[in-house]
């Protein structure tokens, strides 16, 4: 163990003092140019003519880039090559770039862009999932996950319900917009610094666009001002524009999107539409589900197939359903290409599952939490009840125990009674409480992404440089990697320098995504450190006259476990190793064991383990306006043995509030022409501290047994799962709405804006008054 364990974010001092540097804040090389796009005013059109003569003639303008300037492939698609960097013949969404002006500064580039004349022939537009279904506009053939006899079970079920659910998208609203710098170095290599979660892919796509082999491009990622999935693939086009501009002008080029352009051009969390049919018994036990999920992919494929698949394998959340059929389709629409966003489809899938559970509960007049817990996967009883629709057995399932702990610590039952009393005495304000679980699969569905590398150098003074393939976007990955290196090497973090992520240090990396950053890179860092330790141990053993197996590295020192009195300084051993011509540099590599996935059958073991938690939320809703107040939140979440507790708590709290925004106040609206109307924080409302309740309690679940999965120092992934804890707010809102009238069904739109809640209240009130008048007719007066 190090003397001073790392307790908080490694850049905290830089953050609070304004000294932490982000991509667009580096010292500018001389002659640096800026770019500005020429954007399409149509969501779908044929490009007839682009005339940039005026712009090209303006002083200070160095180039106007069009598709014709691209020396390599005009494509930035990460999976399928369907994504032109600069539109050549067609524009496929409102705001798409048909040209980029390169000029001395941004104001000049913007002014010149306004002079570029483009003639379009407008084409019919498809702007949402309903449009896409109507004209059968889909990106790929349907995907399926299925088990059992769905049709037969549905028809034999005692109860059967059908329904539909629309789920809104979400803008990432990372505080730092997309940014990249590019320049050609002394050897003609393209050096890119990008605010990217996936430097390797950025490197590959820059190389593809410029027609270069990958070894001619280096991509570095400094700290990002937030990512949340929005910089997993969608940093690539802007890095490619900067690189193309640098290639054409032979000058350094910077790009940092304005907030408006960022929101207009980049993809978001996929809006979803679901159709479902469910069969269940009198106790609310699931017997069969048939679900069709439609994800709004936008104009290109981007990451939509894996996003959709994650939604499909998370519909079940924590619930066992013996017979299930899930079909998934990606709508092709004239919108920006929707992409990864914290949860990666999982939240949308789980929201559909929770909607179904709530329908069942209200239909039967049961408390929703009772139906939830009855349907949990469980390790006792029939073994089949612990297997997911895609065939993976759930191990280490903490949910039943965690659920009971949270119900008790949050005083759930007593509060439910108190709420009923409150509601009985308030006609125009109703409260609701709900508890919901989260079971989130950890690992990339695509097996090959589950690998990572690290590179560790020790210098002769004993100081260490730590490189790994993951990127830092605020989640504290670098801090955790410092903790892993420090714990493994037995030296203080003060002696370890974390390096910016760079493709020339660790090649062929995976995106920092899928909550996997610490799991994958942590093992790779540990492996590199252990390689170095084994070399150093031999050197130390010689000096301490013991066997290498008996050497202990701790507290910046090295000793023989049999005689702890005699100690060598770590630096002394390092110097001795150098003198003995022992290598002080090592790579580390890791691949997650035991994974398999067949996308054609929808079967396999895609997840190494599941990250779980649960939350209780209580709300009060105003019957006059539909405005709600979130009054209290209780969370119990399983992070295993936390590497850095403050960081894990930050992920839980921040993830919850981001989910709260998605489900309540964040609403994307488009004009009939496909123009984004909510392209600024004045119109697109992410939560402020005013939306966060005073009473917010977070606890970390203490498990009784060690998990089976060999996770890094026993810690579990925490990046995405807490976002879905916010489903408890949606369900609490539904509970409060139900108290206004006949509650056998509460249709609540998502996001649950004041207007959506108001409409839901009106509909339960209307159902109540219909019931009353029916009863009046039946009962003779």
């Amino acid at each position, binding site marked *: 163990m190090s003397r001073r364990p790392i307790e908080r974010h490694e850049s905290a*001092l830089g953050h*609070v003092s304004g000294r932490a540097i982000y991509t667009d804040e580096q010292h500018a090389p001389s002659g640096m140019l800026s770019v500005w796009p020429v954007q399409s005013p149509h969501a779908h059109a044929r490009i007839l003519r682009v005339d940039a003569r005026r712009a090209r003639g303006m002083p200070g303008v160095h180039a106007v880039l069009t598709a014709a300037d691209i020396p390599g492939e005009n494509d930035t698609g990460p999976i399928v090559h369907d994504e032109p960097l600069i539109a050549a013949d067609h524009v496929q969404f409102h705001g798409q770039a048909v040209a980029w002006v390169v000029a001395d500064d941004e104001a000049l580039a*913007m002014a010149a862009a306004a002079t570029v004349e483009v003639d379009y022939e407008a084409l019919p537009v498809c702007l949402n999932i309903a449009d896409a279904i109507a004209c059968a506009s889909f990106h790929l053939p349907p995907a399926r996950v299925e088990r059992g006899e769905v049709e037969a079970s549905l028809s034999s079920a005692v109860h059967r319900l059908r329904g539909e659910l629309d789920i809104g998208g979400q803008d990432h609203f990372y505080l730092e917009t997309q940014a990249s710098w590019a320049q050609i170095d002394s050897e003609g290599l393209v050096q890119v610094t990008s605010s990217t979660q996936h430097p390797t892919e950025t490197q590959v796509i820059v190389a593809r666009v410029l027609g270069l082999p990958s070894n001619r491009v280096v991509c570095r990622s400094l700290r990002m001002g937030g990512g949340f999935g929005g910089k997993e693939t969608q940093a690539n086009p802007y890095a490619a524009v900067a690189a193309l501009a640098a290639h054409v002008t032979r000058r350094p080029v910077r790009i940092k999107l304005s*907030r408006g352009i960022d929101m207009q051009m980049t993809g978001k969390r996929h809006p979803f539409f679901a159709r479902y049919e469910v069969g269940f018994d009198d106790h609310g036990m699931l017997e069969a589900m048939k679900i069709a999920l439609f994800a709004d992919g936008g104009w290109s494929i981007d990451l939509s197939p894996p996003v959709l698949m994650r939604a499909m394998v998370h519909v079940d959340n924590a619930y066992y359903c013996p017979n299930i059929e899930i079909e998934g389709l990606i709508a092709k629409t004239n919108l920006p290409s929707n992409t990864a966003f914290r949860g990666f489809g999982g939240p949308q899938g789980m929201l559909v599952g929770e909607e179904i559970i709530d329908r069942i509960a209200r239909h039967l007049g049961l408390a929703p939490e009772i139906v939830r817990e009855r349907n949990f996967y469980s390790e006792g009883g029939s073994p089949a009840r612990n297997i997911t629709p895609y065939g993976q057995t759930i191990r280490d399932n903490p949910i039943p125990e965690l659920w009971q702990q949270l119900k008790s610590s949050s005083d759930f039952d007593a509060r439910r009674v108190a709420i009923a009393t409150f509601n009985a005495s308030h006609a*125009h304000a109703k409260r609701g409480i709900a508890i919901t679980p989260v079971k989130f699969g950890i690992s990339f569905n695509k097996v090959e992404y589950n690998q990572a590398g690290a590179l560790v150098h020790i210098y002769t003074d004993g100081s260490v440089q730590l490189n790994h393939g993951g990127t830092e976007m*605020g989640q504290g990955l670098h801090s955790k990697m410092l903790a892993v290196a420090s714990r493994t090497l037995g030296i203080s973090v003060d002696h370890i320098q974390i390096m910016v992520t760079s493709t020339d240090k660790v090649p062929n990396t995976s995106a920092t995504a899928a909550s996997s950053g610490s799991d994958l890179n942590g093992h790779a860092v540990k492996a590199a450190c252990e390689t170095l330790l084994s070399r150093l141990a031999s050197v130390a053993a010689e000096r301490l006259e013991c066997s290498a197996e008996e050497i202990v590295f701790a507290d910046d020192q090295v000793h023989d476990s049999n005689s702890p009195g005699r100690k060598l300084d770590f630096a002394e051993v390092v110097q001795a190793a150098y003198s003995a011509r022992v290598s002080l540099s090592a790579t580390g590599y890791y691949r997650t064991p035991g994974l398999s996935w067949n996308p054609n059958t929808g079967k396999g073991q895609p997840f190494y383990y599941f990250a779980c938690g649960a939350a209780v939320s209580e709300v009060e809703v*105003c019957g006059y306006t539909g405005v709600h107040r979130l009054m209290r939140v209780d969370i119990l979440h399983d992070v295993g043995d936390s590497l850095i507790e403050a960081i894990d708590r930050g992920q839980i709290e*921040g993830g919850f509030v*981001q989910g709260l925004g998605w489900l309540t106040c964040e609403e994307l609206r488009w004009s009939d022409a496909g123009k984004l109307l909510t392209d600024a924080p004045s119109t697109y409302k992410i939560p402020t501290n005013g939306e966060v309740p005073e009473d917010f309690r977070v606890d970390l679940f203490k498990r009784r047994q060690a998990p089976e999965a060999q996770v890094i120092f026993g810690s579990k992934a925490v990046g995405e799962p807490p976002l879905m804890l916010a489903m408890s707010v949606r369900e609490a809102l539904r509970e409060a709405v139900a108290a206004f009238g006949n509650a056998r069904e509460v249709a609540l739109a998502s996001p649950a804006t004041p207007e959506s809640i108001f409409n839901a209240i009106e509909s339960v009130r209307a159902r109540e008054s219909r019931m009353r008048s029916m009863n009046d007719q039946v009962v003779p007066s």
Partner: protein
Amino acid sequence: MTNPAFRLNGKPISLAGDDPGESLLRWLNRHGSHGTKEGCADGDCGACTVAMIGSDVEGSRRFRAVNSCLLPIGSVSGRDIVTVEYLADGDSLHPVQQAMVECSGSQCGYCTPGFVMSLFAGYSNGELDDHTTEGNLCRCTGYLPIRRVTERLRSGKPAPGRLESMLDSAGPAASESVGARFFNPAELATAIELKQRYPQAQWIAGATDLGVELSHGKRRDAIFIALDRIDQLKGIVIDDDTVTIGAGVPLSVVESELGAKIPALCEMLRWFAARQIKNRATFGGNLGTASPIGDLLPILLAFDGTIHLHGPRGERVVAANDFFIDYRETARSDDELIVAVRLPLSTHRNATYKVAKRQSDDISIVAAVFAMSVDSERRVEHVRLAFGGVAAKPLRALSTEAYLLGRELDQATLERAAEMLGEEFNPMSDHRASADYRRALCANLFARFVAEHFA
């Protein structure tokens, strides 16, 4: 023309030759000062927050958090600005920064300097609560650590030091103009004269609306006459039955000075905007831009307020009800200046309601201000039902008011009034809400008002 300058972190900096319409944020970044971040350039995210020394009504100096993206450097001339880089003294962190580190108040860190500056101003003024950082968006932390920081700082007191001593050494902001097109007059008469000399010039007050356009590169060539250093616009006078508020008083000052006196105004100001905006925005500006969703305008309508104008032809007073003509069009002629608003202290029951997609710091879907009295038999003696967000201009529900006047406030009357309110306006559907929801709110907010005040 004297040499315009400002003090940045205690150092005098010349603004000679600079474009006065450029935002302070752009200016800082262009000069290599990157601690102050651009998150939106719209005045909504707070990442660009800096502290500016300003005066309260008594004239004592204090640090105020402002959005540097909305502050044209023409307005900065002669003022003192402190940015995040100056808070730490060498390696010794300011207590605000120390608390942010210890409470894990940063994750990605991009919004952090803005939070630090909002908290710094609050700490320095002894005004620390959730509203201190309401104008700062954070996408990572969920705000809980920020709340812990705020709580921790509340027990601390700013120690006298180089930052506090800046308050003593700061002089009144001089009236230097920046270039030949950004005038900073100190006298009302000078402002009126300048407008006659440059009829095309644009009045600019706190620049919280116009600043958005400037920030996006629009209207950069305009001539500006800034009104934020004219003392005659900065008074608040409280009589027995009226309050007169200078058109140039920052709304945060209005809020703190008049909170107890006019709760309905205070309630609206609480939801009006974030602290950084209220530190710059004024009554004059809100009335001058006359946005149909300007939240202060229904207050003037419901309280029978008056608007006091000053121009080359002297002073005149316009009743609020006559002031708004059409979309962003008012009874003020172009060469006139709003100098004050006067609000009778209402003896009627009154209340303010604002419904938005997000309850804090958002633009209204509907804003409503009601004032009403009934006699001993519950007959309506006086009624004003004023709304924002329902038409091209703020409006009173005159038909419903006429219906209610003299009627007994019984169930049938209320039902009919609600029906009438639902039909009185023809609001539009937009990205904030549908017309139907807006109509329903008109009726329901009145029902809520009656339930809360006339039960």
